[in-house]
């Protein structure tokens, strides 16, 4: 009877809808597929009942069964996609705590990193970066810098000599002369590089070290400019709250000369184990000495300028909390990899 089959189709529909919607995993779904679409499945059973109908009723019953089959098939597909996606999301058994296949990064030397910081401040201010030689003559290292032979100021520069006239530079200041000999004002340059002193090495001395030299020469440069530029530099390097102090000092090739210190941040200037007396000397600086201008044939009446120099390792030691300068040249990988 067609009515019986119609009723059966209605029952099958509601049952199938319920079952496919509540199925929990792919395994159960497969069981459902077999239950409905298998060779002896519910659809086969219901299709076989068509034969019991009158020939005139058969097309309608066939149509209804096919429609239902397609409906359920679609339901099955949807359910399958959903369950597959779910099982993929949770299913792959990776131990995610295993280390990744890392690209190894090496390291740059702390001197390079500190120079990066220093140089970017000065290049932003419009200074050029110039590199110069490490082996120099007496003339460039001393005489042109107003430090004649037999001057006691040379005591502070224990020098490695190659010959009587040729030496390893004891500071980066010879670059001042080399630059001014080659070009006319305005000059504004910084120059980093290695220097050598014949000093026994200990935690704060190394026979080789890096300095950074700076020079600014123009027609109207005064000590006020020196203070402005160097304060700005130190505040950019050490932080806005840095207290900068300018005290008189002495260098043969500047007049007036100054030693620039920052207040120790550990003790706020009271004096502690790090700083000793509350301040950390960072820079030596001063107005270019007229004798130096004369040596490079600049008119000291017309031009003024300031020069400065600083020890790069010393700054790195302060910034990175390194307590022994010798570490910079030992090249222990366990040191280098920290930067």
């Amino acid at each position: 009877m067609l009515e019986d089959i119609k009723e059966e189709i209605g029952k099958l529909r509601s049952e199938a809808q319920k079952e496919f919607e509540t199925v929990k995993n792919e395994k159960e779904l497969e069981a459902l597929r077999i239950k409905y679409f298998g060779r002896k499945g519910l659809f086969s059973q219901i299709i076989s009942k068509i034969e019991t109908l009158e020939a005139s009723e058969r097309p309608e019953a066939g149509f209804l069964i096919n429609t239902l089959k397609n409906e359920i098939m679609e339901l099955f597909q949807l359910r399958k996609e959903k369950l597959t996606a779910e099982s993929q999301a949770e299913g792959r058994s990776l131990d995610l705590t295993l280390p990744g296949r890392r690209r190894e990064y090496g390291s740059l030397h702390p001197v390079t990193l500190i120079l990066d910081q220093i140089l970017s401040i000065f290049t932003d201010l419009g200074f050029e970066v110039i590199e110069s030689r490490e082996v120099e003559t007496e003339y460039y290292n001393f005489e042109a810098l107003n430090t004649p032979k037999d001057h006691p100021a040379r005591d502070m520069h224990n020098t490695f000599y190659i010959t009587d006239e040729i030496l390893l530079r004891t500071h980066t200041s010879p670059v001042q002369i080399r630059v001014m000999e080659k070009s006319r004002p305005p000059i504004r340059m910084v120059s980093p590089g290695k220097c050598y002193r014949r000093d026994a090495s200990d935690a704060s001395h190394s026979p080789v070290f890096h300095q950074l030299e700076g020079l600014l020469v123009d027609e109207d440069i005064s000590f006020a400019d020196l203070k402005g530029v160097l304060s700005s530099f130190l505040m950019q390097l050490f932080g806005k709250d840095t207290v900068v102090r300018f005290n008189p000092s002495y260098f043969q090739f500047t007049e007036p000369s100054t030693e620039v210190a920052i207040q120790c941040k550990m003790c706020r200037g009271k004096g502690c184990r790090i700083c000793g007396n509350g301040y950390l000397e960072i820079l030596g600086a001063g107005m270019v000495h007229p004798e130096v201008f004369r040596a490079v044939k600049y008119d000291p009446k017309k031009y003024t300028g300031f020069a400065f120099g600083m020890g790069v390792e010393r700054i790195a030691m302060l910034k990175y909390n390194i307590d022994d300068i010798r570490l910079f040249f030992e090249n222990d990988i366990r040191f280098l990899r920290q930067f």
Partner: protein
Amino acid sequence: MKISCNWLREFVDFKTSPETLVERLASLGFGVEELHSTDGDVIIELEITPNRGDCLCILGIAREISAALSLPLKDRKVEIKGSGDSIKNFAKVKVEDFKLCRRYTARMITELKIGPSPSWLKKRIEAMGVRSVNNVVDATNYVLLERGQPLHAFDWRLIKGGTIIVRRAGKAESIITLDGVERKLTDEMLVIADTERPIAIAGIMGGLNTEVTDKTTDVLIESAYFDPVSIRRTSMALGLETLASYRFQRNADIEEVRVSLDRAAELISRLAGGRIIKGVIDEHFPFPRPKKIKVSLERVYKLLGMKVSKEKIINILKNLGFGVNVYRASLTAVVPSFRYADVKNEEDVIEEIARLNGYDKIPQRIPVLKFVHDKLSARNSSYFITRTVKEGLADIGFNEVLNSGIIRGSILKNLLGEINAIKVSNPMDEEQNVLRPSLIPGLIQNLIFNFNRDITDLKLFEVGRIFLPVEEGNLSSESEILPEEQIMLCMAMSGNAEQRWDGGTRMLDFYDLKGVIEYLFERLRIPHLEIKPSPLSLFEKGTGTEIFSADTKVGIAGELKRGIARFFKIPQDVYLAELNLEKLLSFSVREKKYRPIPRYPGVRRDISLIVPVEINEGDVRNLILKEGGGFIENLELFDFYQGEQVPQGHKALGYRLSYQSAEKTLTSAEVDKIHSCIIKTLSSRGIRLREKE
């Protein structure tokens, strides 16, 4: 230098605490190294810069404090009457060299009694770091510490011929100094002599032959002015630095000579009794005329960037002991004798003005920089290009090292054999004595250092200067007497290529090094790279290469000879490359130009080849590319095999060829044609296709 606060107060009556005083001194340019209290006194250890020889004594520091705090300086004058006949009847002084001794003064005290100094005096000089000897010697040291003028006391009875001669030493002369050491003298050195022999090295140390001892009853006190340069040279030549020589080098106050002499005579007679003989010997060259320096207010402003009033300037200079003549827009500073060595020109006087006025009063300004056409690109210098190289190597796992330019001669010899390197004439360590002509020795040492600490996987690099001697024949100008400096890049790698938890560990080999070089060339945009085999003694046979770009040699690379590695106790293979960075960077293409992306699809073909071992892979590659005309867009070696599957004396190479044309879509027939041409050419060289198994 150590300074006693109690002593200081005898000259300037400051009320401030030592802590405040120390801050004020620092602001005047005297760095404070230490401050400590002892026995009712405070000792300040000051750093005195070499220009301030006048401050190597209590009086000098007192002058500074008096000027800074506007307090009166209490410097009392000593008046000596003396007794008996004039000294000139006993003693003769002959200065033979007025160039080296511009003033020589002396007094005599007789019938004194040598003994220990009173405890107050002992305490003072010992607090300032001077050992007590006896009352006479201590008195001369006391005056030195107080006034900065070195003095010497001779036992008068031991001076032969009653004559002091100030002369240069004879060539073969020598003297035993007070420290008991025999000193050989040269005719460059100034001595104090009697009629027979030297009795002191002028300004440095007295002789044992005229030492003041317990038996001494009559002394001759010397106070003189010696040439600073001569003192310095003699002191350095003899390796002998004393309180006296240190001051004579730095302090030259010709007027103080006589004042200190009288002060010493008075003190000695007070401590040791005796009689000061009437009169004084004072041999001198005409005194230099007081130096007058013109200071314009405009120059003060120009240099300091601030206006200082004329009244203020006058006040500062007068407080410092300068005389001042005032004009409308300028003034003249008359330099006191104790500042002759230091204050020589207008800038020096301006520094004094700034110093006393306070550096903290100078305003801060950021200069407005003029536009300069050729200095626009501050970041375009070679420094920043070098910086790219460093970044590039750190990015692929290299650690940057930095080494000294001075290296051990022996390591150089063991690595590179007898090569001409520049020697340091006064090395600190006889071993560490040459300037590096290569960065390789430094990196080898770094490897050894880390191997010894059980770190065996290493990739290091350094960028630095090397020093090469200039050929003798080329010494024409000043710059050429200097060695040639070149900026080099050196890389060293050794150990595991990578370590993975899922296996796949392998050791680094030559192709890792070559890959790094190729990477660098690409990163630096250097289009041409050629690596040519070259038998260098540093490298293991068959691995040495020279690196070229555009036919210029830019470096070397290879595996460190295993014999050398063994010699240095390096337990594994080491790969090294050294490149001349300046040369290399000159080939870098700065201006990048875009090349259109091919519009037509390409065709890929793989070929597997059996190649006789004597044909290099590079040659095979070149044959393919040459035959392929412009149609091979990319050629990639994907397989290399040598072993059982391949006939003896052959190797298998697998290539992937990407055919592409910029003008059209290549048809299969066109590609087949080119492809078979390539195979034909290869087979003419004995290279054949590998049969499919």
